[in-house]
């Protein structure tokens, strides 16, 4: 999809000029007030830019030069809002069917698939007010899907939910993308959701496009550091399941350069891709590799120093291993004693137990 626009928001101007892949989940990430919601409102036609072009597939939504501004109801989009926005006077069934074209769906294949995927069969006769937040949001997603949009916009659909519900809905969202092959633009400020869902990532700051690209490259970009938070510095790694430990509940992940990383069991088949985040604070560096009978640490990985970023209190070391990167936080004192420099090889020690369930996702 093509987006090139200028729009005036409350406090600043939104200036975007980009193209987004027509498949997969593209996450629009940024602080609140960075213009992310406005961006998808502009795409949906709920807000109007001053000038520019917005088009998706063969449909032109907006073109200031050609004087085109398609009203929202004629744009081939689905929108899942932060709050479910179900129609209170209609039951779940009627809500689902609001944008649904019965004649276009022979034998109700789509209807059955959506109801099945989101498990809302038991809710059909109920009214929105009697549903929990998670159930409401599931119905809202189903309602948007049944319109058969060519693009699905989602504005922090999980932010009004409590943690267990979030986790539950995330799994639905993952399946959604796989089942329907529908491009999704997903607005969020949660890094967990980025880790789980994103294929492509757009970072907005003050109405400007700061970064764009595949998740790993954006996440590991130095400009992302301020977003990750002081003690939340972490790197995103792309790995594959390469072995299960015969005796212990551990799984080895192939880091791409022949080295392995042991983490607590991931129940996936051999070769399954795993996206993993490792916090900088969980990595220590050593010049010499200890053997497994000398240290409790199972993961001692050889890496090359590619960047040394000295901050006030600590030092962030960027390490390259194969196609992946890692960040390690050490003290200035350690840096001086180890005499580290860019280009030097070193061993990164990662405690296997520091990688928790919420730190990885299999695709």
């Amino acid at each position, binding site marked *: 999809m093509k987006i090139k626009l200028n729009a005036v928001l409350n406090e600043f101007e939104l200036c975007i000029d980009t193209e987004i892949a027509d498949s997969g989940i593209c996450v629009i990430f940024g602080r609140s007030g960075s213009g992310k919601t406005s961006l998808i409102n502009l795409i*949906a036609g*709920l807000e109007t830019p001053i000038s520019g072009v917005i088009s998706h597939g063969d449909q032109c939504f907006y073109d200031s030069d050609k004087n085109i501004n398609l*009203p*929202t*109801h*004629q744009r081939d*989009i*689905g*929108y899942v*809002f932060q*709050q479910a*926005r179900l*129609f*209170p*006077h209609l*039951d779940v069934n009627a809500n689902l069917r*609001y*944008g649904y074209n019965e004649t276009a769906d022979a034998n109700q294949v789509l209807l059955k698939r959506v109801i099945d995927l989101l498990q809302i069969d038991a809710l059909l006769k109920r*009214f*929105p*007010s*009697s549903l929990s937040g998670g159930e409401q949001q599931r119905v809202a997603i189903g*309602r*948007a899907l049944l*319109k058969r949009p060519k693009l699905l916009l989602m504005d922090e659909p999980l932010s009004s939910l409590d943690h267990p519900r979030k986790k539950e809905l995330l799994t639905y969202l993952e399946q959604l993308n796989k089942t329907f092959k529908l491009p999704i633009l997903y607005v969020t400020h949660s890094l967990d959701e980025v880790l789980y869902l994103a294929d492509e990532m757009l970072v907005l700051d003050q109405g400007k496009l700061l970064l764009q690209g595949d998740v790993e490259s954006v996440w590991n970009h130095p400009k992302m550091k301020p977003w990750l938070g002081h003690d939340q510095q972490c790197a995103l790694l792309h790995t594959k399941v390469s072995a299960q430990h015969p005796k212990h509940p551990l799984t080895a992940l192939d880091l791409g350069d022949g080295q392995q990383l042991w983490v607590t069991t991931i129940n996936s088949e051999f070769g399954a891709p795993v996206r993993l985040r490792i916090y900088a604070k969980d990595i220590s560096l050593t010049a010499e590799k200890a053997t497994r009978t000398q240290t409790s640490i199972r993961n001692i990985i050889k890496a090359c120093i590619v960047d040394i970023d000295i901050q006030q209190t600590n030092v962030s070391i960027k390490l390259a291993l194969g196609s992946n990167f890692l960040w390690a936080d050490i003290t200035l004192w350690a840096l001086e004693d180890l005499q580290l420099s860019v280009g030097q090889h070193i061993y990164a020690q990662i405690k296997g137990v520091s990688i928790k369930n919420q730190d990885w996702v299999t695709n």
Partner: protein
Amino acid sequence: MLSEFEIQAISLSLKVAVSAVGISLPFAILSAWLLTRTQFWLKPLFDALLHLPLVLPPVVIGYLLLISFSPNGFIGAPLAKYLNINISFSWQGAALASAIVAFPLMVRAIRLSLLAVDRNLEQAASTLGASPLRVFSTITLPLMIPGIISGVILAFARSLGEFGATITFVSNIPEITRTIPLAMYSFIQTPGAEYQALRLCIIAIIIALLALIASYWLEHKTLQKISGNKGL
């Protein structure tokens, strides 16, 4: 039970009130919509004109209707000439007078309910492919129903009680324009008819109470439906 005279007055009153509410409802919804959802240059004037019947003495309204709708009036003359319609001194005239007097009450109630409609829901409907007209008829209007009901009941009650504008515009003609209040007025003017006046008074109270009960019931039912508690 009821005398023929009383039955006449009651049925005439109901006929006048129901017609008055019936004609003004679409206009009231339109006016409420114009006032809440649009911006136009003459809006303050429109708003003021709309509320005028609320503050003007009903006699003034009756008088204005009389001079404009009489067969020589600037509206009455063309009506009589081209459409052969003459509403002065007829029950239709009484209905028009009631409609005008009750109009601001109806608009106010409907306007409040329109203000309370969550625009986010309308947005959601438009992202689901609904045209503005469909959004209005399937989302906005159903959510306004409680306000429309209270507006209708208020206007209905006001119409039943209309006296000043009616007697000025269409006079007090038995069987044609003598509604309950006008009939009561006639009895009060007649020496020795206190008993009949009292009977009409009780009838008026009963009708008013029934209307109130009906409105509470309807409002409760629709509110329940809108908020979705079991619905049906």
